[in-house]
């Protein structure tokens, strides 16, 4: 349903992604792993329309979406939780969530809020608190909750485990699996390759802006090259 075809992209004249091709099918959890600086975040920025492309195409449900701006992609169901989380810091947890549903009908908001509060009860408890006063793990849940308010068809998560304790990391990755099980396609970017591969249906290994390996998550987790380079085994 989401396809990147021979993408070239970068910043200014500096090209970061080279002939990058990946795809995500409906209901799949796909991860992209790779070292720091490999181009994972840049890949998600291309999909979200936050940066332009120098070549290649992004297609979604058969439509070419290259060059659409961020807000147009959210309308189509492509939603990203960015590396920095990009929460609205001074605003309350509830306001952040409600804003997540900006592209949707007003009538749907309350029902969706209840669903998010069920998934992340801590957000209900803290609903009147400013987002910036919450811990890293709570902020990550809020960022994911805010993205789910848009009712995404494809949810992209950029290093959701950054700054979290191992326990919180599992909570967040389990949430990602649960979201996939609810029918949403998930594209997960992680440096924590071992954990990401363990829950992925398929995965790509990125190196210097190109895909160097791809395959089912468990298979890649057992691959000698992956073990050596990314799992520190």
């Amino acid at each position: 349903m989401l396809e990147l075809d021979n993408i070239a992209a970068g910043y200014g004249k500096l090209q970061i992604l080279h002939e990058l091709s990946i795809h995500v099918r409906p209901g799949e959890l796909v991860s992209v792993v790779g070292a720091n600086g490999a181009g994972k975040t840049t890949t998600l920025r291309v999909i979200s329309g936050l940066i332009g492309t120098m070549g290649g195409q992004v297609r979604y449900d058969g439509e070419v979406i290259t060059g659409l701006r961020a807000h147009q992609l959210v309308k189509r169901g492509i939603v990203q939780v960015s590396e920095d989380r990009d929460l609205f810091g001074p605003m309350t947890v509830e306001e952040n969530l409600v804003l997540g549903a900006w592209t949707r009908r007003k009538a749907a908001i309350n029902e969706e809020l209840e669903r998010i509060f069920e998934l992340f009860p801590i957000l209900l408890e803290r609903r009147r608190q400013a987002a910036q006063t919450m811990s890293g793990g709570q902020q990550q849940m809020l960022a994911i909750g805010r993205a789910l308010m848009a009712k995404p068809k494809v949810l992209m998560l950029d290093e959701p485990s950054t700054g979290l304790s191992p326990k919180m990391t599992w909570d967040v990755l389990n949430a990602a699996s649960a979201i996939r099980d609810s029918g949403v396609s998930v594209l997960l970017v992680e440096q924590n390759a071992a954990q990401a591969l363990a829950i992925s249906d398929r995965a790509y290994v990125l190196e210097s802006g190109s895909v160097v390996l791809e395959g089912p998550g468990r298979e890649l987790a057992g691959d000698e090259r992956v073990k050596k380079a990314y799992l520190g085994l």
Partner: protein
Amino acid sequence: MAVSTRRQLSLRPSPFVATMLLVLALFVVALLRSGSMSITGQALLTGLIAGGVYSLLAMGLSLIFGVLDIVNFAHGSFLAIGLFVTYEVVHQTGANPYVALPVAIVVLFVLGALLQLLVLNRTMGSSLESQLLITLGLSLLISNALLLFFGGDPLSANLHNDPGVHIFGAVANLSRVIAFVGALVLALLLYVLLEKTSFGRAIRAVAANRQGAGLVGIDVRMIYAVTFGLGTACAGAAGMFIAPFTTITPTAGDQFNILAFVVVVMGGLGNIMGALVSGLIVGLVEQLGGVAIAGQSPLLSVFILFLLILLIRPQGIFGAKSS
């Protein structure tokens, strides 16, 4: 579970209280210098009334800064356009100047939004110097366009009947009282728009995190244009409100530019309610200072206050120290 906000017991007054003490001191000095309660009371009333207009004007400027990160040095020129829109409406139709209020608001909103979309959008994120050059250039362009169309002779848009209104022994013309009340009503409406509507929530979201706003599907460029339009509409409305008692010339907005800037810094850049309160304070300081330091321009005391704030409290007199 509740976040504990520890308060330290401190004998130092808050910056806001310190400012109010300063205003009080100015009042006392003015009273002593003039030796007349009625002169000082008159200055108090005139200052408060002028301050209401400063508040509205500065709220627009602060809103623009808070959301777009643009320091708009053309703000006073938009007020001048509001003056001329009012003149034109009165001149063409012979109507009461207040008929021009919705016209000025709509014209300035559309003009501001279009200017943002077509011109200023290109400067988004560029350095402060280039923004300064562009908005100053815009300001010159507006003044000269007004000069071209209306000439340099002073014009007026007076009320047919502008009686004095007695308030606590002081007198103010009806037009000034209307300006004060009208400006505060619009200021309140702006506040309600920002705090209580979902569109206002989106504006605040862009101010808090523009990338985050894009990621939830807000059209950030549209918000920029609308916000700039709202800011210039504030200037336009302020211009309409003062038109009945102001000499209308193409450069009439320039002194308001500086005043609005002082108010915005005092209230804290991007702090809308801060601008509302600071506008009233600046009006008071201007008028009381005019009596206390007689013989000088009333603006002198405003600039002394501005310097004090820049030196001691550059983040403004409200809220905590920010980065």
